[in-house]
């Protein structure tokens, strides 16, 4: 048993606790330890990827208890990739948080950040359904704190809405787990899969109920239409770096759908007609509503939020096919949409820091207009899926994988038409914010008031007008811009190395559709356990 498997859970947990206990008042120390923790997490994640690339599935039995009784952590290619993606994203976004000064807008940013990473990594690694619920709650409760970081009436209100929606989702999750436990008598995912496989088809009524309930829960997390209503206000009102980290949270829902519906529920009997028929239309509507939202919104923050919804739509179209080829496309698109979505939120936050708000209206030329316009342009191209960036390759892979599907005309029509809408929406927003502002040269550029006395590293109480990040708070705008540059570099690398990445995704998808390796790893070879 290799103890490194639990490191992505333990490391952020220990870091978060250390930060909150010993470094409460020292922002510099918090930053050093937090970034070191995230960097170490990335290192561990890369090592786990190397381990998983052998094609073997690794099991970590907590307390060395035998499998269906104790909790297990599972490491396969998909889990390792998601952990690495989370760590890489967190590292880049954390640099942005330093550079923009967001992390000194309130208390406990870094502790919450680490707990958030713990929850996300745990959700990717766990092999136990109830443990997945626990990690969901960990990542949610940390995200509540992060979401209202910095305070302000609108943000708090959006936070209350976010909590209420997700509490209802958690309740549903427990109901689904209860139903599944009542049917199968186990909570270990591999054991559950083995029992479902031998269950007679006429006894599966409750199982199907459980499967659909679970699908609803994960659809809330992934913000599939019609369960997406929590997302726009939450993401638009969350601090920029937090919204960027949340780009990986919708992927937790997608990951859980992929995991449960390839491993536990056999597609031929139980799920066909129940989940499949629901998932594809929901994905198409998600894509359409996300892209129309990009065009319809009057706020840059909401624009980024709707772009996130649209990317989940494209992703779920690929996932809903449940074929290895489509899943390959989905895995590629997961990496792309996480990086691109996060970069868009950061660029939008840079605009907000310079303009004071995010409404799509004419305003004076902001400082650093050219650089930010260039970053926005590149990010928008990546998000809507135009060449030359990886969004284009991702969409091509999705279209190619659905070529033979029965619903292919619907899928192709929706993807292509909605991309057009998104391109129009993005270019309208970009030209209004960046180009047309030059027509208003006579309006004096508002400068950040330098007269205000600089407070300590962490302010005790924020003034009402400080809830919006402004440039005067930025420790280093250059660092913030280079963090966005890092994410864009990731997208470029994803484009250039599309071949190797696709081969990696292919191997990952093959592993997902051969659940017997996973089952054997957990349920057999348990000598020496309690």
């Amino acid at each position, binding site marked *: 048993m290799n103890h490194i498997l639990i490191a992505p859970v333990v490391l952020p947990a220990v870091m978060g606790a250390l930060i909150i206990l010993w470094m409460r008042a020292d922002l510099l120390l918090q930053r050093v330890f937090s970034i070191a923790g995230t960097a170490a997490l990335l290192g561990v994640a890369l090592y786990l990827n190397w381990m998983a690339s052998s094609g073997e599935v690794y099991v970590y039995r907590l307390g060395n208890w035998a499998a269906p009784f104790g909790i297990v952590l599972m490491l396969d290619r998909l889990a390792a990739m998601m952990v690495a993606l989370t760590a890489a994203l967190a590292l880049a976004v954390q640099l942005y948080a330093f550079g923009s000064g967001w992390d000194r807008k309130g208390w406990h940013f870094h502790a919450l950040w680490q707990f958030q990473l713990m929850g996300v990594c745990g959700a990717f690694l766990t092999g136990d359904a109830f443990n997945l619920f626990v990690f969901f709650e960990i990542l949610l409760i940390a995200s509540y704190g992060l979401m209202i970081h910095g305070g302000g009436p*609108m*943000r708090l209100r959006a*936070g209350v809405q976010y909590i209420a929606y997700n509490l209802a989702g958690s309740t549903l999750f427990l*109901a689904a*787990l209860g*139903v599944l436990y009542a049917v199968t008598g186990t*909570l270990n995912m591999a054991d559950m899969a083995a029992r479902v496989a031998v269950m007679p088809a006429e006894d599966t009524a409750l199982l199907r109920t459980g499967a659909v309930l679970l699908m609803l829960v994960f659809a809330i997390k992934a913000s599939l239409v019609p369960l997406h209503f929590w997302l726009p206000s939450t993401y638009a009102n969350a601090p920029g770096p937090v919204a960027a980290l949340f780009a990986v949270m919708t992927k937790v829902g997608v990951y859980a759908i992929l995991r449960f519906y390839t491993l536990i529920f056999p597609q031929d009997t139980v799920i066909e007609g129940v989940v499949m028929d629901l998932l594809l239309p929901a994905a198409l509507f998600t894509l359409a509503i996300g892209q129309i939202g990009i065009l319809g919104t009057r706020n840059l923050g909401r624009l980024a939020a709707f772009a996130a919804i649209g990317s989940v739509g494209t992703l779920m179209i690929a996932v809903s096919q449940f074929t290895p080829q489509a899943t390959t496309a989905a895995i590629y698109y997961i990496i792309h949409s996480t990086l691109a979505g996060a970069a868009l939120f950061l660029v939008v936050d840079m605009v*907000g820091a310079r303009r004071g708000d995010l409404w799509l209206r004419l305003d004076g030329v902001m400082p650093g207009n050219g650089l930010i316009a260039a970053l926005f342009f590149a990010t928008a191209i990546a998000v809507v899926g135009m060449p030359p960036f990886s969004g284009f390759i991702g969409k091509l892979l999705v279209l190619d994988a659905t070529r033979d599907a029965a619903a292919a005309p619907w899928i192709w029509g929706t993807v292509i038409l909605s991309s057009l809408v998104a391109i129009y929406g993005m270019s309208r927003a970009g030209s209004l914010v960046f180009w047309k502002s030059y027509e208003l040269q006579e309006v004096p550029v508002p400068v950040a008031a330098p007269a205000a006395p600089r407070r300590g590293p962490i302010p005790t109480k924020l003034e009402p007008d400080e809830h919006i990040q402004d440039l005067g708070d930025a420790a280093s705008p250059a660092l913030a811009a280079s963090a966005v540059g890092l994410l864009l570099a990731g997208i470029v690398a994803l484009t250039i190395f599309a071949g190797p990445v696709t081969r990696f995704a292919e191997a990952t998808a093959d592993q997902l559709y051969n659940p017997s390796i996973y089952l054997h790893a957990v349920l057999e070879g348990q000598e020496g356990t309690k």
Partner: protein
Amino acid sequence: MELLLSSAIGMMTAAGIYLILRRRSFAVVLGTTMLSYAINLFLFSTGRLVINQPPILQDGVTSYTDPIPQALVLTAIVISFGMTAVTVMMALGAFLEGGDDRVDMPRADREPGVSRGDAGEGR
């Protein structure tokens, strides 16, 4: 016994759903609490209902009740308790900063230039 438990779960779920659809955050908090009570009872029932039997191994006892749902309910109670506390704190914060305790977003969240009362313009 079964009828009593299932109707209790049903009634609490109905009350919970009605309450979380209300507009004030106080009712929503009560609603989520009610829902979590209902779910705890439901989880408890997933190990089949048996009366007067121990969950843990004892000498001279041959039949037991399923201990796992009890452990799950315990976890769920702890989590929902913590979550309720967080919700109350956030709702209080939103009420004190925003001036009212509605859970829906005001128009100022979607449209520029709309005043949202005395608390200044939000982003």
